[in-house]
Each structure stands twice: as structure tokens, then as C-alpha cells.
């Protein structure tokens, strides 16, 4: 069964460093998303992406964040200068073009020291 994959599974970085989180969505999906979940809190929407552009973003998704689909398979989230409060689990999701169901990857656990 097709699934969303994410790399790395864990990332530790120093405050102020740039990180890139990678995702491979399900191959025939057209909408892509990033969410995050701070430990003990609810899953929060960051950004959605369709047709090579951002379709919606939350107030969390400020100028430090960017997304890109550099080729036909990968979808990336970049955080330019990480802060302590960026420590969270980051989930990529992609959406079935027929019905809109969003399928999530296993997540990348980001720890900013």
C-alpha cells in the first residue's frame, strides 16, 4: 500500500541553524501539507501546497519557513534559522485527488538545542 515517507526520522540541531525536512508524498497525490505537533499538544497546520505554490499557510508559517517541490517526488520544509520553540514533530501529508483524504507520514522529530 502506498505511503508517505519522511526523512530524517530524527534531527538534532543548534539554535540558529538551518534544517531541511524531506517528504515523499504518495505518487498520484496533488495536494501536500506540513503539520507540526509540539510534545503534548495538538497537531497544528503549517502550510498547504498545490500546483507548485502555497495555497494556504498558518500564522506559524512565518518568513523563517519555506516549502519546495524540487522535483517530481520530493516535498521539503526548510526552517532558515531554528529557534528552541521549533522543537516538535513535523508531519508531512498528501491528499488523495479523488476525495481529499489526507494521509500522514511517520514524522520527523526535530530537537533544537
Amino acid at each position, binding site marked *: 500500500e502506498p505511503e508517505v515517507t519522511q526523512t530524517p526520522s530524527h534531527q538534532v540541531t543548534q539554535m540558529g541553524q538551518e534544517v531541511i525536512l524531506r517528504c515523499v508524498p504518495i505518487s498520484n497525490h496533488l495536494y501536500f501539507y506540513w503539520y507540526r505537533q509540539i510534545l503534548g499538544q*495538538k*497537531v497544528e497546520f503549517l502550510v*498547504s501546497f498545490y500546483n507548485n505554490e502555497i495555497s494556504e499557510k498558518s500564522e506559524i508559517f512565518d518568513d523563517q519557513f519555506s516549502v519546495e517541490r524540487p522535483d517530481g517526488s520530493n516535498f521539503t520544509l526548510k526552517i532558515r534559522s531554528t529557534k528552541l520553540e521549533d522543537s516538535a514533530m513535523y508531519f508531512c501529508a498528501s491528499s488523495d485527488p479523488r*476525495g*481529499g483524504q489526507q494521509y*500522514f507520514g*511517520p514524522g520527523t522529530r526535530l530537537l533544537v538545542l
Partner: protein
Amino acid sequence: QKEVEQDPGPLSVPEGAIVSLNCTYSNSAFQYFMWYRQYSRKGPELLMYTYSSGNKEDGRFTAQVDKSSKYISLFISDSHPCDSATYLCAMSGGSWGKLQFGAGTQVVVTP
């Protein structure tokens, strides 16, 4: 008022019992309603997806949506210890729109 309210639990039930979960919401624009299961430190796994009001069954899982009351439910029949997880409700206003999640309810099924 939070957009999506969900009791965090924990909810403990004996094996074989029915698990009853629910969420309430305030935004009448929500049209699509989902239930996800999340094991510790894993990604949410889609269980049920419904549009507008009504019931939907899939094996041991039954989802109900009552838009007039802004209330959604998930029932798990014949529960097993492997059903022990956190169950998240989520909803959106459009087919491919952002999901608004509840806080999740932790369920423990005891043998």
C-alpha cells in the same frame, strides 16, 4: 472558545467493550470530518472520513456526524488491546483544506 474540543482522557475500557469517542466544534463551515489513530511518537493514521451529516461504518468502526449539534462521534466495537492509542478528530471546510485537529483522546483497552 476552541474551534475543536476533545476530551483528552485517558479513557480506559475492558477488552471487548465499545469505545465511545466524541468531539464538538464551533465553526459551522466545517464539512469534512475525520478520525485518526496515533500511536505514541508515530504519524496519524486515517481511520474514517465522512462528509456532512450522517453515519458511516467500516468494520468495527462507526463514525457519526451531527452538524446541527456540531458534534461528531467514533465508536469502536469489540475493542482489543491493540486499539490502545490516541484518537484524533479532525475537520476541514473544504475537500483539500487544512485540517483542524482536536487534542486527541487517549484510549487504553485492558485485557
